[in-house]
């Protein structure tokens, strides 16, 4: 197929994570020989995404690769897109299984929740805490109660803590939110540290909250020896804090690969190829990927031959030692 255009839809534009994914997608697509059109609205909302997708349909695009802000809110419009002959894939954040063909996932909520908790546990251990026995005081700080994936990680993480570290105490079971406002992230971060002087760790599963929380600790003169801060954020935004000794480790997956892969799957299908659950596809420059059934993410998920999940990329934990290998 010639001249295929994949519309690559982030939850919102102007966010480091999605911008990096776009960079990756554009670079790979150049090599692969198709066009990626990055289109999203500066405000993350279902209605805005629906508009963007409708526009793609109306413009007669070939394929969509969407990170959905809502688990079900895009289902109808995605089905409409399929009916209009577009290939519909998702990445990062999914819709219902029957409303898309392939999802490129960074992992299940359980995996990511566990990763967050493990990173905290490791940081704590490294500063001499006994994570299995000490009464560890911690809390979560992220963007908003309405953001789907961050919340699902939090829920899964809490479950994991309840199971493995019953001795831990969450000082704020309702969490702290900073609404992707960087300044608010600092203010809330400072308040969290001052209100709970004996806090041991903060998990920031939001790419604005993590640097904000780190800056707050820095403002208060706290280092990784006083408090363990960890979470998800692009490596570039945290390198300085890591060098300054404010935090020890944080994580993410290679969102550039993820974005590129999502677009590739869309392109692959739009070029007339068929993909079934169980197939293994060779992606040039990335490697072989396997299409799993939807149940790898959620046991009750919709299953069908033409709807599956690609689990990639691997998640990375960044520390002072490896962070300079990544530039995004």
């Amino acid at each position: 197929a010639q001249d295929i255009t994949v519309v690559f839809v982030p939850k919102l534009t102007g966010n480091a994570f999605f911008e990096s994914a776009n960079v990756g997608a554009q670079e790979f697509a150049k090599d692969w020989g198709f066009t990626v059109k990055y289109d999203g609205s500066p405000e993350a909302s279902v209605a805005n995404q629906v508009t963007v997708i409708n526009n793609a349909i109306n413009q007669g695009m070939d394929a969509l690769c969407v990170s959905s802000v809502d688990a079900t809110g895009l289902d109808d419009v995605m089905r409409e897109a399929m009916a209009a002959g577009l290939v519909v894939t998702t990445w990062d954040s999914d819709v219902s299984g029957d409303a898309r063909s392939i999802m490129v996932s960074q992992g299940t909520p359980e995996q990511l929740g566990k990763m967050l908790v493990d990173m905290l546990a490791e940081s704590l251990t490294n500063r001499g805490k006994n994570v299995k026995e000490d009464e560890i005081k911690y809390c979560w700080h992220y963007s908003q109660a309405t953001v789907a994936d961050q919340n699902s990680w939090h829920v899964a993480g809490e479950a994991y803590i309840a199971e493995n570290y019953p001795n831990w105490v969450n000082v704020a079971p309702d969490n702290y939110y900073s609404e992707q406002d960087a300044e608010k992230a600092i203010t809330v971060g400072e308040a969290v540290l001052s209100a709970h002087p004996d806090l041991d760790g903060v998990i920031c599963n939001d790419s604005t909250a993590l640097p904000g929380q780190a800056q707050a600790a820095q403002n208060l003169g706290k280092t990784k020896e006083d408090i363990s801060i960890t979470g998800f954020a692009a490596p570039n935004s945290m390198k300085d804090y890591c060098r300054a000794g404010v935090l020890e480790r944080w994580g993410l997956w290679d969102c550039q690969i993820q974005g590129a892969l999502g677009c590739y799957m869309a392109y692959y299908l739009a070029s007339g190829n068929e993909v079934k659950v169980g197939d293994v596809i060779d992606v040039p420059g990335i490697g072989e990927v396997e299409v799993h059934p939807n149940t790898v993410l959620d046991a009750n998920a919709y299953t069908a031959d033409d709807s599956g999940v690609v689990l990639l990329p691997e998640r990375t934990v960044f520390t002072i030692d490896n962070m300079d290998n990544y530039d995004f």
Partner: protein
Amino acid sequence: MKRNIKKLIFRWEFALALILLLEIIVFGRLNPRFLKPRVLFGSINDFVSICIISLFVTFVLITGGMDIQAGSIVGLTSISIGVLWNDFGVNIWVACILGLLIGALSGAFSGFLIAFTDVQPMVVTLGGSFLYSGLAMVVSNLSEVEAYKGISGFPQAFLAITKGRINGIIPFQFLMFVALSFLAYFLLHRTKYGRKIFLCGVNRKAAEYCGIHTRKVVMSTYMLSGMSAALAGIILTSYLGTAKTDLGKELTMPIITAVVLGGTSNLGGKGTILGTALASLVIGILRFGLSMSGVNTQYLDIPVGALLIVSVAIRSVSSNDRLVSFIKHRFKRSYQKT
């Protein structure tokens, strides 16, 4: 007759209609798909909430008020309907009616404070916008479904109210908008109530001296705009198939933009429904048309802002005798020189 035509041509609504026409022509040339009736009419699905709410926010602005809380009421209504239906087992249609009631109450509460304590409307509705979006969170906590998930799985009949199209072309939303425009037009321009709204906006004290219950009138406009926001909440919930607390949160600025571009004065006393209706279409179609022509969504604010400033500037400059005569003077002089 001739005078009437002249009067018509100099009306702002006429200019807006021209702009709308121009948009359709220009975007049609840029991308012929744009002109497909199904596509063109279908585009309203994505901005019908702005159209509907701005019709009634016009009422508020005419009384000299300001309403920046409508967006929050959309979310509050949506989640309330969802929770009522999902967790309290209320029939979906009853839930919708309760939703309208919630919208009306929210509007009435702010309206009450504005009308009875004379606090500046912008501030009260700013507080309202925080309060109602906060309440939406509280309501969503009543549900067993976590806030971030959104409540879905509504009955087919409910979803169908926004899915249908007449002849497969004109979506129901468009009809709703037209019907509501007529309703709003009738209310504002043809009833005694509408007249009182204008009088309150022009000079509230004088309206008091005329025996008009200005407080009730002012309060009622906020109630109406709250109800229209609730209606938009219902439509959005049905259209998206999910009830969420944050639906509509990005609508505030577009609503105000549509109302003021429609010619309503934020000082009160002036404005028309036709103007607002046309302006909301002008903005919606502009955004849609630009997207169809390949402009990235994140840059759409630039042309919309420019349109807003330029059109209003031209209007105010051309109605400013002093500036016009100054410009004419200049022009004449440079003309004579050459």
